[in-house]
């Protein structure tokens, strides 16, 4: 039961059941399950996500619809919406985030216990949407880590359910007892950390597409984070 080996086991824990079999020379008796602790823990986590609804706009209405009986997020084990971040492990940011609200958002994110995930729901939370003004943050992923993005204005409830499923897959793939995330996430975090200590306008691009905002090319040409965007 090696910690960190869950990536090889490819989810769908607890695994083989039934006939006794021989695994690498060790006889496994009947009615015995072989898996990794990582895999079991991830399996437990992914079916008991407790969302923290950070609903600031009309996306929040769709989020309520997902929680209600017609779409019923309880089918995926994520129905326990808690309004205290201390009890949650999934933040769903639904709606635009004003620059006055962002310190609140960051504080709530910091208050959530590990392990935690974040869904950026809708065009406004992901990119600022049509609100390209001084007061609205252009994508929350500039300031907090995001696991799954949902497009739409607002997204259909089915899309939110899909994002829960995607996140469950991600949790199953990436979670370990020792708290390491997905390899691509770690890579991205490292890049963000490098960029943070650069003076405004001097951020380094790791790969093609990073020059602007991590894959999203601004129509007005490459942007420089943190400097005057008044062009």
């Amino acid at each position, binding site marked *: 039961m090696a910690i960190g080996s869950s990536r090889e086991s490819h989810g769908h824990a607890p695994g083989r059941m039934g006939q006794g079999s021989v695994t690498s020379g060790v006889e496994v008796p009947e009615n015995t399950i072989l898996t990794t602790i990582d895999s079991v823990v991830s399996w437990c986590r992914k079916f008991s996500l407790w969302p923290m609804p950070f609903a600031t706009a009309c996306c929040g209405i769709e989020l309520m619809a997902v929680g209600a009986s017609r779409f019923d997020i309880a089918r995926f084990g994520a129905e326990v919406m808690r309004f205290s971040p201390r009890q949650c492990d999934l933040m769903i940011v639904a709606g635009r985030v004003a620059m006055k609200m962002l310190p609140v958002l960051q504080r709530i994110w910091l208050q959530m216990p590990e392990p935690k995930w974040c869904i950026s729901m809708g065009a406004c939370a992901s990119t600022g949407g049509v609100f*390209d*003004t*001084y007061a609205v943050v252009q994508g929350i992923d500039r300031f907090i880590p995001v696991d799954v993005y949902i497009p739409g204005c607002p997204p259909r409830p089915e899309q939110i359910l899909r994002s829960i499923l995607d996140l469950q897959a991600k949790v199953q793939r990436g979670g370990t007892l020792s708290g390491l995330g997905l390899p691509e996430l770690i890579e991205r975090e490292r890049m963000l950390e490098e960029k943070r200590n650069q003076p405004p306008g001097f951020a380094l691009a790791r790969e093609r597409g990073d020059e602007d905002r991590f894959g999203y090319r601004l129509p007005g040409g490459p942007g420089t984070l943190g400097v005057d965007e008044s062009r």
Partner: protein
Amino acid sequence: MSTATNQATDPHAATLATLARVFGDGVFGMSHFRDNLRLFLPPSRLIEVLTVLRDECRFALLAELGATDYLGYPGWTRARFEVHYVLLNLDTAERLVIKTGVDDPKPELPSAVPLWLGADWMEREVFDMYGITFTGHPDLRRILMPDEFTAFPLRKDYPLRGRGERHNFPRLTREES
């Protein structure tokens, strides 16, 4: 005071008669737009005219207080900022718009809070968005933008996308959060 027939044709006749009786001519300019009557005042006469309107013409409610920045407006010759007061007479439902202009570099107006308490937050909003200070306001600070905001975002020389305020936050990474 005016006659009843006069009032039927012009709802502002009584108000204008009172103002003419108290102040005489030449204090305010006048213009009409549809059924609105707008009076233009110099800032120095603002409070006394508003006081007469409230006390003698019974405009008990300050329905709206706002401002406009006319920087770069085609053909504009008056002061850069214009502050408007929309008054409502609760007895006759008469509405009256009072306008006054203030100019750069230090736009300043007397506060209307002593007349209508409802002017409190509206003047704070005008201050927040345009930087027009209202002397005599009991608590003039920002109402919508965060306290550490330094610009006045509804001024025409402020860029729509701001001066980087919306990016001026620490980035939280997963490793440290």
